[in-house]
């Protein structure tokens, strides 16, 4: 299919979908093309965009809540791109991407786009290509929501891509302490107790979260962890939630945190690309992950794919002499 990049920027869904397919292509032959695409997309990122991470254990009603969140943003005149990430089976490589079925939305709405991704062999809560997809959405939509399943320490990558992270729990799950221990609680800016229609249990969950709040690190940046009660079932609380999300976005831009954050985000992207390509061996060749991170931070990182290529060369150069020494 031929396409015009301008169609993508205009939000034509056919073109957006097509670019996503291209960027997901991992064959080496498509690297050059994708590099150019990423360049164009990055240069056209919407300055006012807001990337929100929504995470939480399975069964807390994330998808149902998403239905309300999308609807509310649309009624506020914002366009919304959603990426949902589900785990892949480590044995077969297969994945069930079941969220789409439960997020109710109008297929005719030009201002909403949903894409599901399988995490593949990548650990950390995102998929290998989530960041590529994100770059497209950042050039097209006002609000970008990344939904992941967060249950333990290994799924906390969400804060590397989302400016605002909301963590969803349900009452009576008894999981809250578990999450605190697991480190998930150090990440979110907003805590949401969904299914708060279960009154007594919800009050208890609220108390637990108040305690857990003291574990939060986001307070260090001058933002106090916010608590919101919602009921996707009865359809309330999501307006307040969005008010809080918008307040956090405002906070980010006023504090000037966004720029540093976006830069850090790109550094982590290159790290991820590098890991996908070379694994632990690559880091070893270049003297360790921290050293690689510093190398990346030193230069221009507008185009992570280009940075990857530069590092690629280094890996090949460094490898040869070592071999020769043996």
């Amino acid at each position, binding site marked *: 299919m031929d396409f015009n990049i301008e169609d993508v920027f205009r939000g034509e869904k056919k073109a957006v979908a097509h670019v996503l397919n291209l960027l997901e292509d991992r064959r080496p032959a498509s690297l050059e093309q994708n590099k150019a695409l990423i360049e164009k997309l990055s240069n056209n990122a919407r300055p006012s965009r807001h990337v929100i991470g929504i995470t939480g254990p399975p069964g807390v009603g994330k998808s149902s809540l998403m239905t309300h969140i999308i609807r509310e943003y649309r009624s506020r005149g914002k366009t919304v791109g959603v990426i949902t990430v589900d785990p892949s089976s480590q044995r077969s490589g297969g994945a069930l991407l079941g969220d789409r079925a*439960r997020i109710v939305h109008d297929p005719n709405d030009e201002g909403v786009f949903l894409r599901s991704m399988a995490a593949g062999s990548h650990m950390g809560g995102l998929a290998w290509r989530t960041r590529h997809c994100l770059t497209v959405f950042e050039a097209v939509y006002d609000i970008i929501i990344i939904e992941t399943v967060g249950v333990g320490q290994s799924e906390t990558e969400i804060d590397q891509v989302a400016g605002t992270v909301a963590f969803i729990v349900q009452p009576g799950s008894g999981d809250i302490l578990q999450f605190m221990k697991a480190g998930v609680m150090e990440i979110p800016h907003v805590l949401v107790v969904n299914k708060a229609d279960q009154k007594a249990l919800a009050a208890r969950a609220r108390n637990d979260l108040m305690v857990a709040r003291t574990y939060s690190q986001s307070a260090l940046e001058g933002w106090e962890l916010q608590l919101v009660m919602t009921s996707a*079932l009865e359809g309330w609380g999501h307006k307040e939630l969005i008010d809080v999300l918008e307040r956090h976005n405002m906070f980010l831009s006023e504090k000037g945190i966004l720029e540093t954050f976006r830069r850090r985000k790109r550094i982590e992207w290159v790290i991820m690309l590098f890991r996908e390509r070379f694994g632990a061996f690559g880091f070893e060749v270049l003297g360790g992950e921290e050293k690689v991170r510093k190398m990346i931070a030193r230069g221009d990182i507008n185009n992570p794919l280009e940075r990857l290529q530069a590092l690629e060369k280094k890996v090949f150069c460094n490898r040869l002499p070592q071999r020769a020494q043996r």
Partner: protein
Amino acid sequence: MATSADHPKDRPWLMRAYSGYASAKESNLLYRANLAKGQTGLSIAFDLPTQMAYDSDHILAKGEVGKVGVPVRDHEDMELLFDQIPIEKMNTSMTVNASTAWVIALYVAAAQKQGADISKLRGTTQNDIVKEYLSRGTYIFPPKASMRLTSEVISYTVNQIPKWNPINICSYHLQEAGATPVQETAFTLANAMGVLDAVKESGHVKKEHFPNVVGRISFFLNAGIRFIEELCKVRVFTKMWDRICEERYGVSDPKMRRFRYGVQVNSLGLTSQQPENNIARIIYEFLGVVLSKDARARSVQLPAWNEALGLPRKWDQQWSLRLQQIMAFETDLLEYDDIFAGSKVIERKENELEEEARAEIDRIQEMGGIVPVLESGYMKQQLVESNTRKLRQIESGEKVVVGVNRFEEAEPSPLTADEEGSFYVVDDSVEAEQIGILENFRLRREKEQVARALDHLREGIEKGKNIVELSIECARSGVTTGEWGKTMREIFGEYRAPTGVSLVASDIPQTGEAGKVNERVRKLNDKLGRNLKILIGKPGLDGHSNGAEQIAVKARDVGMEVVYEGIRLTPEQIAESAMQEGVHIIGLSILSGSHLDLMPEIVRNMKKRGLADIPLVVGGIIPEADMKKMYHAGVKKIYTPKDFNLNDIMNGIIDVVAQAHHVEL
């Protein structure tokens, strides 16, 4: 021992047949003809739009109008259905669930117009929403709201129509969805407890009348081929229900604690290969629910031998009825007391089932009862898992299905020689005609009266008034089924139930075959540059999702990335999702017979989005004669219940994708 024939003979069960016709007028003629022959009971099947509270011209009604039953959109349709039939004297059974409150309101309004005494009406509404979430898919509202509706139908009838059976709790569909006997027993009883608790909590029924509520609950069971176990299952049901009624609800009258149930023996297990063998299956399954006098079914409906092939004809149905009559009138079954009394073997099996079922009920109660458990997806996931296990056993040959995975060689059957003519086919012009009648009705009625009635409905519900009573006013005022549904959807919200699919644990490719399929997927992934991504879903209003779920789980297990879209998709949604998700292939499951209406629409919507090159595969009950048309519309592969080998289906999907991308594997 009381085994001799000196007892008075036991009365036979009621012999039912399920019938549906495409319009109110046609159905009325059929009913009148049957009544003239001496039949006293009527059984009404409604089409899916009516069951889902949509009008015939709703976008999702396309291809479904008049398909599995009669469309009833307003009081005139209901009046026509009972034209020259005295409603007061009828015993009417209605298969309706999510929209029960509305349908019974139309029924009462029609009865009142005939001048009937409402308190004398007799009949049954299915009104069981739990199995809709778990298997049949014809639910509308969130579980809590649905339970309120169910409970208000019950309190309305107990107070106003005391002879009505307001609910028929179904385990039938749970077994179809994969339930083991233990799950079937536990989930069904937990369901009944949830319903009774809801009625009790509502306070709409006086305390001294509550035993009547308990006594009016009836059940609808399934009977599978392992008929000894099934026999034990119905005996355990009977025993456990008696105890629950006594202990939990304090019902002292044993008659009110009787486990009253009807049965349709399993039609999903019937095979299209050597279909004449199904007669044997039907008979053995039948044994399980009539042999034991203490737990005998009160009514039995036997499927036709050729149901796996298409809609049965009258002759096919007659054959099934004769099977029942031979059992009741020729054999000596009814002359004996319970022939299993004192059997140690049966008792042991019963104890085992009961113990496990009780543990499962306790688990559900611990999780907060039926509503939270439905919301959590727990039961659905359990069913999908059981079903996966069962299909795997059939595939591996561990579970024998004669004519399917063993003894497959067969002589040509004279019974199926003339397939084309052997099925009842719904007329294509029905939909347009029905929409015409509806539009005409909308023009004739008083618009202001309609608006006022809907306002009253809205306000009344908020104030906690009985929904059936409010709906009767709507019915009289000329509100249509779709308008009632829309208002209710605005009040209670529309629900999408957990699919249960994503919670099912992944399995190692079990046999060497599945492992090979996985290798092929990986190879294809490398060539495509992206992982093979498939969209699976169900277009139309039919919500029987078991097949689609099993394909989704299997596809995941052989390494595909599966976007599971669930049920009730419009052609537009399918095309749009395929585009946004960037899938390589679309797999659709269609069972309601609307495939010929839906396929061209789906293809058109895909072309509109430049997706003409994404291949489509379809699974479902597709008659041979329709296949050609489907292939012509652009479908690449069609799978019917004959194709039980899931690995073969997966290989087919891989081949189609490879071909579409000009890749050699």
